């Protein structure tokens, strides 16, 4: 089990913990391939999703993971909640906690919000993305996918391309990949590269060709179109030209290199249509693996020692 209350980021998660989550996710993925992909391990537990930002896949993935383990789910949607009436995050957390969930899965547009929330609840807080800080379960599912496709993470060369500055995925991936022994190169517009990021142990490349040469994994980040409107890069066209991934560029990478993306993709911008549809691209595997990894995280935080295979299938 994970001997921690919350999962807020991969920066403070140990190699052993990451290893445990990935290994546990293997078993979960097996459960998901059964005719009835459901176990009662977390029966009687409640998982609350609290999303302050629109999200389809992450929320659905967490809810699916909770249900596959037999847990009940509750969800609080921002638009329908009292947040719009000016309730503070502290009060929302106290209120949600009073409903008795065992875990709160939280997404918020401000960095550090789940850390703040965790102070006011006994429930396990799982960060499902906070501002530009971290998105640890995305980092874990990316690690899981790389390990599945490449057989290992240690010793691999991985390039992350795009808006590093605003990306919580990039931060979790950097911690995850470097902790597990891979080398990471970053590339993106200089206006979207956070200062002193090299101190995390990564290499920053100015040109994409330099970044992807010989790498085993090319990880493309989603570019938010409002960054262009904010004047951080001149145009979508120039962005695609300088930083877009296509099959021709992929020839620079290692022969069996794969292309990843956290979704949703901007087809034709950071990833060309041919690239998106290529069998070198593993975006949909990432989505499936996300379910397994989130099952593992919920189980390891809430499971209290029961093996996920104990008991009979519920339905």
């Amino acid at each position: 089990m994970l001997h921690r209350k919350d999962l807020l980021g991969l920066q403070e998660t140990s190699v052993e913990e990451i290893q445990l989550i990935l290994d546990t996710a293997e078993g979960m993925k097996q459960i998901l391939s059964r005719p009835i992909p459901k176990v009662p391990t977390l029966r009687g537990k409640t998982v609350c999703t609290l999303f302050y930002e629109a999200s389809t896949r992450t929320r659905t993935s967490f809810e699916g993971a909770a249900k596959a383990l037999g847990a009940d789910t509750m969800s609080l949607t921002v638009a329908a909640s009292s947040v719009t009436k000016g309730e503070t995050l502290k009060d929302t957390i106290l209120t949600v906690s009073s409903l008795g969930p065992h875990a709160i899965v939280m997404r918020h547009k401000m960095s550090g919000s789940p850390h703040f929330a965790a102070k006011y609840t006994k429930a396990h807080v799982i960060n499902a993305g906070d501002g530009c800080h971290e998105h640890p379960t995305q980092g874990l599912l990316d690690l899981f996918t790389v390990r599945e496709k490449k057989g290992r993470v240690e010793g691999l060369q991985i390039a992350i391309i795009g808006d590093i500055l605003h990306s919580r995925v990039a931060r979790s991936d950097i911690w995850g990949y470097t902790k597990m022994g891979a080398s990471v190169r970053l590339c993106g517009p200089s206006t979207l590269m956070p200062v002193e990021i090299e101190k995390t142990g990564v290499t920053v490349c100015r040109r994409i060709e330099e970044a992807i040469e010989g790498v085993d994994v090319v990880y493309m980040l989603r570019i938010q179109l409002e960054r262009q409107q904010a004047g951080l890069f001149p145009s979508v066209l120039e962005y695609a030209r300088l930083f877009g991934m296509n099959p021709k560029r992929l020839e620079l990478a290692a022969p069996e290199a794969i292309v990843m993306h956290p979704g949703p993709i901007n087809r034709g911008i950071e990833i060309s249509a041919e690239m998106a549809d290529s069998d070198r691209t593993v975006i949909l595997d990432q989505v499936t693996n996300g379910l397994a990894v989130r099952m593992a995280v919920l189980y390891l935080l809430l499971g209290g020692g029961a093996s996920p295979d104990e008991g009979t299938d519920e339905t």
Partner: protein
Amino acid sequence: MNGNLLIKGGRLIDPANGIDDQLDLLVQDGKVGRIGKDLPAAESTETMDASGRVVCPGLIDVHVHLRVPGQEHKETIATGTLAAVRGGFTAVCCMPNTSPPLHSRAEIEHVLRRNQEEGHCRVYPVAAASRDLKHETLVEMADVKEAGAVAVCDDAYPIQNPGFLRRMMYYATMVDLPVVLHCEDKGLSDGGVMNEGYVATLLGLKGIPRTSQEIAVSRSLRLAQETNCRIHIQHVSTRGEVELIQEAKSRGTRVTTEVCPHHFSMTDEACITYDSNTKMNPPLRTQDDVDAVIEGLKDGTIDCIATDHAPHALEEKEVEFDAAPFGIVGLETALGLSVCKLVDPGHLTLPEVIAKLTAEPAKCMGIPGGSLGLGDPADITIFNPNSRWTVDAGKLSSLSKNMPFHGWELPAHIHAVLVEGSRV
């Protein structure tokens, strides 16, 4: 005023008069009556034993937000000035970003009247430089000066238009008021919440580059030189600012400066827990900047220590880091932090630090105080430099408790504070 008081056996440190010696001090009719070795106590004279303690001029803080009028849920004159004397201060300059701002005779007189009614120390109001802090219309500077304002200022609403800044300097020079400046180019700070650097990168928080301060300082220094205006630059906190000011002083620009205790006591590493009590503007910078402001204090580039005491209610600060207002309270920890971070490590001597908290700030604002010459008002602070105390945010006299020093053990326990000879 009350009767006489003989303060015996203390170490009298009065930098304005070059005194650092074991001397007795007799307070007579609210003034400094006599100073000397082993002064005899007349029968009617009360005696205070100050042995092992430092006796110095009452501290002066030129940068305090008393929040009156209009924000009395954060601080009042009563609580703010009580916090001041608990911290050893006998005079404070209060900032004009209130609601309404201190932008006319009416608000200045209001603050002074409230202080007469409920205050514990001297209060010198600083007027807004522009009507409604909008940087369009100059305030009636001669009138606010006559009402009691000691300077004009743009604190919390930094002037972006250099044309307005230049006019304001010309006009303030004519009426002989110092111009107090919060130097920040908003185009560069642009929504940032902490120092731009490795820590902000890790935390995913928007950074404020040092250049947002340095470019505004540079511009202000040039304009001060051109207009021959006397300016005071608030909360110097980057190495680049120190260098720019050093160069301007060597050219003879009429500039004085301050540094806040938090800017020489902490770095941006303190933000790592997302505690909104580490969020202030200008932000906590890096160790290199801390080293630079300490060097600036040593060589005189930085004239004084001021707190930027910025009270905010609990519910305002107890929110997400991005959503929290900037600022911390500082009156009650300023002396302790100064002794702890400047004297104990050997950067400055105790008399040097006391000068930066008494005579120097008085000079910066052109206000009385900061001196214990014969006949001067007996504004006196007595503290034990070695006795240590633990900061308890819950026990602060300030109405607000927003500060990152809770639980810190600090030296310099305040023993007694006199304002015009009366214990407060």
